[in-house]
């Protein structure tokens, strides 16, 4: 069954001479074009695609300290390891920061407070399972997401 109103999503063909308006050179070719905007619109309209991701961050770092040097250092390490990382850089209560991660469905949160810095650890929370782990700061570079 062909979806009647879907129409063609990509088309093309063989042509004899691409550039006859610009040159005497004979330039035959073959090409295909995908109309991405239209394809996307149609897929959405027919409810065929649903957004799975609301953010592209793997990790949100939630600093609960005044001095941001440790959170920034942790972020730098993660980013060097190609982990998409953002730091919540606005002074809000812990709850509001978690809500942000929740709303954007960021899969992991790292909390860094005074206690953690003293112990040279961070708290890593898996937002899906709710599971929390303590990770040594020096071991952040070995984390895989």
């Amino acid at each position, binding site marked *: 069954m062909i979806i009647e109103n879907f129409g063609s999503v990509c088309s093309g*063909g*063989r042509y004899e001479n691409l550039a006859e308006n*610009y040159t005497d050179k004979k*330039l035959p*070719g073959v090409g295909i074009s995908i*109309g991405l905007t239209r394809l996307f*619109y149609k897929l959405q*309209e027919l409810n065929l695609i649903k957004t799975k991701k609301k953010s592209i961050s793997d990790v949100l770092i939630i600093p609960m300290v005044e001095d941001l040097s440790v959170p920034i250092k942790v972020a730098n390490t993660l980013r060097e390891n190609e982990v998409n990382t953002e730091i919540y850089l606005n002074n809000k209560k812990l709850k509001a920061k978690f809500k942000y991660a929740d709303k954007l469905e960021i899969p992991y949160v790292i909390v860094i407070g005074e206690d953690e810095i003293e112990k040279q650890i961070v708290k890593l929370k898996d937002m899906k399972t709710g599971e929390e782990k303590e990770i040594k700061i020096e071991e952040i570079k070995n984390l895989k997401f």
Partner: protein
Amino acid sequence: MAKTEPRTLSGFMELLPNDQILFNQMMNTIEETYQRFGFLPLDTPIIELSEVLLAKAGGETEKQIYRFNRGDTDLSLRFDLTVPLAKYVAKNYGNLSFPFRRYQIGKVYRGERTQKGRYREFYQCDIDIIGDGELDLINDAELPSVIYMIFNKLGFSNFTIKINNRKILNGLFQSIGQKENSVEILRIIDKIDKIGKEAVIEELEKINVRKEQIDKIISFIEINGTNDEKLEKLKDLKIENETFNKGLEEITYVIKNMRLFGIPEENMMIDLTIARGLDYYTGTVYETFLNDYRELRKCMFRRKI
């Protein structure tokens, strides 16, 4: 302070972040696949000199152009990626290696009548292979395999790459003495999916195609069966026309090689009614259709785009 209402022009797509992520994922899939086949990236300006961009245009296209003056310079927004490619290849001929395989993904602009689902600014994702003087027919078989891989990766399984060859149609018209009318007849045949067979016959009568000629045209476009059966039936028509037979030979070769490139039989189909790009395409033509979307819904959920 008076506030200006924040509006976006109609016909221009603007997405929320979650949809934009999805859109970009689709675009990345397309781009990665183009690269997988060794196509070279190209980016040309959105604005060009009208004189250059409209060197060929006429009729409908010209009416849809966004055109304006900046100082004394007559400028236009590109309305496709093919004309800029033509300019680019002509301009850089000496510095390109042929066959020149390029991909380009970019926005183009057409002042279409605004209605739901019609965009005035939209992305085209193009691949072209340009030969210097000549380009072997096997290239016509490779392009659909790129499209096959893309739609597969996007999570679709039920789609059909339809293929035809303009020489078959042109040769048919020559053989029934309707060469003069061929562009008009093609235009009418092209609508058969939309308006149906009876309406097509009616329109053909209107332009004075004789009954026996109409019968030939209709029996031709009603050729059905598997791809191989269609090729066989085309041969059985025994049309003694050089163009027709060249077209038949070409499509037979292209189909054979599409199989070699790994396109499954269920995803490709000879469709003798496809006659797009009337004054432009000279041989192979393609259209891709997404089929039963209930099935499609399932696979979109299953697979990560």
